[in-house]
C-alpha cells in the first residue's frame, strides 16, 4: 500500500499507525504520551496530523490512526504548527520546569509566558498509569473528571500492593515521579504526593535492605517470562556477586593449592 507522507510517496503496511510509518521513513512527529510498547491513548494530542482523503481533510492523531487506504498525510502544516504551539503553551503551565516541554517550545516557537503557571506537576499523559497496568501492579489510575483529573491511587491512599518496579518513574516525560529508598521502605512519590510504600527485604548476609518484598511469581507471570531463573530472594546483589566470586575462586584455584585472596576478591 502506498501513502503520501509530506509530499513523498512511501510504502505502508495496512493496519500500521501513521506514527509507525512516519518514524520508519524518518519523519519526526512529536509525541508526549506515546511509547511503542504501550497501547496508544491519544491523550496529549501532540501527534495530531492532517489526513487528506479525496477532497476531505481532517485532523487525526498519528499514534493511533490505523492506515487502511491510500491517503495523504501532512505532518507539519501551518495549522498543525499553530495548534501544537498553543498545546505546548497550555501544557507548560502545568509543568513549567519540564525539559521536554522547553525543547518542544523552542521547536514550535511557543510563547511560554502567555499563560500563568499552574504548577500541577503533571501533564496527564497517562503513561505511568498505562505502564503500571501493563507491567506494574495496577496501582495508579486517573481519577477525577475534567480539570480535577489526576494520577491517583485507589481512594487516594498510600498503596501497599505496589511492587516498586519504578516503571512509572522511568517513563514519566516530565520527570515528576520519584522513587526513594528510606530505611527499610521504598517510597514512590507521584507529583509530590506519596503514592506507595513498600517494605524492603534485608540482605541475609550484610543486613542492608535491598529489594521490595513482593510476590515474585505474580510478577513473573505478568512479565510472561516463566523461563527466567528465580532471583535469590535472601541476599542482596552485591553480596550475591561476592559470594559467587568466592565460590568460583574456590572451585578453580583450590585444585592448584592456591590460597584465594583474603576477603573473597578473586582476580
Amino acid at each position, binding site marked *: 500500500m502506498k501513502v503520501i507522507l509530506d509530499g513523498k510517496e512511501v510504502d505502508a503496511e495496512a493496519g500500521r499507525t501513521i506514527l509507525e510509518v512516519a518514524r520508519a521513513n524518518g519523519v519526526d512527529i512529536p509525541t508526549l504520551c506515546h511509547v511503542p510498547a504501550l497501547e496508544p491513548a*491519544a491523550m*496529549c*494530542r501532540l501527534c495530531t496530523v492532517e489526513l487528506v482523503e479525496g477532497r476531505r481533510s481532517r485532523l487525526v492523531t498519528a499514534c493511533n490512526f490505523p492506515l487502511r487506504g491510500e491517503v495523504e498525510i501532512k505532518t507539519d502544516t501551518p495549522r498543525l504548527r499553530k495548534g501544537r504551539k498553543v498545546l505546548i503553551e497550555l501544557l507548560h503551565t502545568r509543568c513549567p520546569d519540564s525539559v521536554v516541554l522547553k525543547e518542544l517550545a523552542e521547536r514550535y516557537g511557543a510563547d511560554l509566558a502567555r*499563560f500563568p503557571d499552574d504548577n500541577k506537576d503533571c501533564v*496527564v499523559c497517562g503513561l505511568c498509569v498505562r505502564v503500571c497496568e501493563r507491567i506494574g501492579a495496577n496501582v495508579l489510575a*486517573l481519577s477525577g473528571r*475534567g480539570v480535577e483529573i489526576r494520577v491517583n491511587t485507589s481512594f487516594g491512599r498510600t498503596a501497599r500492593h505496589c511492587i516498586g518496579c519504578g516503571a512509572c518513574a522511568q517513563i514519566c516525560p516530565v520527570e515528576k515521579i520519584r522513587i526513594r529508598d528510606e530505611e527499610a521502605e521504598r517510597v514512590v512519590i507521584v507529583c509530590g504526593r506519596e503514592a506507595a510504600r513498600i517494605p524492603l527485604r534485608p540482605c541475609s548476609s550484610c543486613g542492608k535492605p535491598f529489594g521490595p518484598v513482593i510476590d515474585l511469581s505474580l510478577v513473573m507471570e505478568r512479565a510472561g517470562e516463566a523461563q527466567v531463573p528465580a532471583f535469590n530472594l535472601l541476599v542482596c546483589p552485591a553480596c550475591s556477586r561476592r559470594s559467587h566470586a568466592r565460590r568460583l575462586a574456590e572451585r578453580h584455584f583450590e585444585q592448584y593449592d592456591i590460597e584465594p585472596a583474603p576477603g573473597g576478591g578473586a582476580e
Partner: protein
Amino acid sequence: MATAPRAAAAPSYAKKFACAGELEQYRQALIERTDPAAPRILVCCGTGCKAVGSLDLLEAMKGAVSAAGAQVRVMPEIKRTGCHGFCSRGPLMSFQPENLFYQRVQPADAEEIVRETILGGKRVQKFLYTPPGSKEPIATVDEIPFFAKQTKLVLKRVGRIDPFDINDALVHGAYKGLVKALTEMTPAQVIEEIKTSRLRGRGGGGFPAGVKWESCAKQPGRHYIICNGDEGDPGAFMDASVMEGDPHAVIEGMAIAAYAIGSDRGFFYVRFEYPLAVQTLTRAIRQAEEMGLIGENVLGTRFTFKVSISTGAGAFVCGESSALMSSLEGKVGRPRPKYIRSTERGFRDSPSNLNNVETYANVPEIILRGGAWYTGIGTERSTGTKVFSLTGNVHNVGLVEVPMGSSLREIVYGIGGGIPNRKELKAVQTGGPSGGCIPIPKKFLDINVGFGRLAEIGSMMGSGGMIVMDENTCMVEVSRYFISFLVGESCGQCAPCREGLTRMKEILTRITRGEGRPGDVELLEEIGTFTNSFSLCGLGTSSANPVLSTIRYFREEYDAHIRDKKCPSGVCKPLFYYEIDPATCTGCGLCRVKCPAKAIAGEKKKPHTIHQDLCIKCMECYKNCKFTSIRIM
C-alpha cells in the same frame, strides 16, 4: 341513577401471545371495550408538572370524583399520563372527549372542578388558558396555538396514554410496527425502509440511521442495540418526556432495530437524574416481556430480544457514544481513543448500534406508514419532525414537536408565544452547551431549523434544546456559563479540551468582571479554534462553539466589556449601573417600594434617584418600572 361501570375490566392474558394474530385479537378486544366517547380526565404527571404537585392533584381528583359518587352520571376514568408539553402552565389537566384544557390547577381545586365541570358540565374560566396579550380564554387543546401549531409524531401518544399501562398503549397502536416488521418484512427490507425515510440520528450528529443499521448488520459476531437516554444538555428534556410518557414507542423502535440488525440484546442507558423514566421503562419492559412482545421468541417467531436498563452516574460526557459504552461495560466513562466505528467494534468490542431515544421512537411509525410517507414531512435533507424543549425568555416554555425546516419565527413566536415583559428577542441558543447562539433579529429569524442549516451558521441541531434569550442577556456571560459547565463535565483525558476550556473560562471570567484586556478576544478565538480541532471526542471538538459563535455574532458586546468596561445588557454587575431617567419618571414610587436595598429615594410625583453605593443591581426596579424610566448605563 345507577353508577355505570368505570370501564369494562381489561381482557386477561394468561400467557405470552403465541402469534401476531393473538395480539391483534387482544388489541381489538381492548379497543371494543373502550368507549371513545366515555369521559376521561388526563392529569399530566410529567417531571415538570410533578414538580408543581400534579401527583397530589391526581389523588385529589380521584378522591373528589369518588366522593361525588352516585351523583356522577358516567364515572370518568382518571388517567395518569406523561408530559402534555405545556410545562410552564403546570399542573395540567385535560378532559376527553371534548379536549377541554385546564392549566395551573391545584389539588385544592379538585372539588370545584368535579362540581362545576364534571357534574355541572361548565367550564371554569380561571383554569382556562389565556394567551399572552389576549383577554379571551381558549378552552380546548385544538384551539391553543401552542398545541395547534405542532405536528405530533414522536409525541403522538405522550400525554395521552398512561405510561404504566401497556393496554392503554396497545389501544393507541403500540407494537403495530413491530408486528408488521416481524410478519411482513425481512430484516433487509426494514433497513431499506429506514434508508428510504432518510431518518437521521436525533442525538445531535444527524447520521443517517438506515446507513448505520446497515453497516452494523454487515458485521459478524453478536450485535448489541443501545438506546442513548443520557440527555444531559442544560434545559433539554425531550428524551425524558418520551421515555416517561410513551416508553413502549422506544422499546418497539429498539426491537425493530434489533430485528433488522440481527441482535438479541438491547440496553437502555438512562441518566441517573431521570428516576421517573427508569420507573416507566422498567414497568414497560416487564409488561412487554409478559406479553411476549420482547424476550424470547417474540410473538412465536424465532426473533429473540432482551432489554435491560442501565443508569449513568451523573457524567455529561457519557452521552458521547464511546464513553457511554465504556460506562455500560462498567468502566470509567471516558471516550475511547479509537478510530473504529462502534458499529464495527463498540460495546464489549462487538458491533453495536447506538441511537438516541427520539430516533428509536420515530421507527415504528416509519415501518407502519412507509419511508416514503416519512420523507413527506420536513425538508429534503432533514426529514420528519424534531422535538424541541423550548426554554428561556419565552412565554410558552415546554415541549414542542415541529416538522424539520420550521422557521425559528414559527417556533419562538407561533408556538412559544413570543418574549415576555415587552422585551426584544436577542438570540436563540440551540444544540446544548456545545451548540451556538444564533442572533435572531439581525438575520436569522426565518432560518429553517434542520441539520445542515444550523451548522452553517455556527450552531448545531444537537439533541433539541432551544433556549430563547431576550435583550437582557449578556452574551459574554452566556458563553462563560456554558464554558464553565463544560469545564466541570469534560472528562479531562485529552489536553486540548481540559486545558483549553480551563483557560477560556479564566479569560471569560476576567472579562465579565471588567478585567478584560485588549487582545483577549483574539486569544479566545485562538484557543477556541485549537480546542475544536485538536480534541479527542465530540464533546471536545464542539466545546468552544459557545465562545466562537458569540464572538462571531456579538463581537461588539465583547468589545464593550473589554474596552469600555460596560455590560450593555445589564448582567455583569461590576460593569453597569441603573439610572432613573428624570424626563420619563412619574414618581409613582413603585421602584422605591420594590427595592430590597432601599437604594431608591424620591418624593411622590417627582423623579426618583438611585443611591449607587446602596444599589445591589438586583433588577427589581428595572423589571417593575411601568414607564421604562430605569436605564442600564
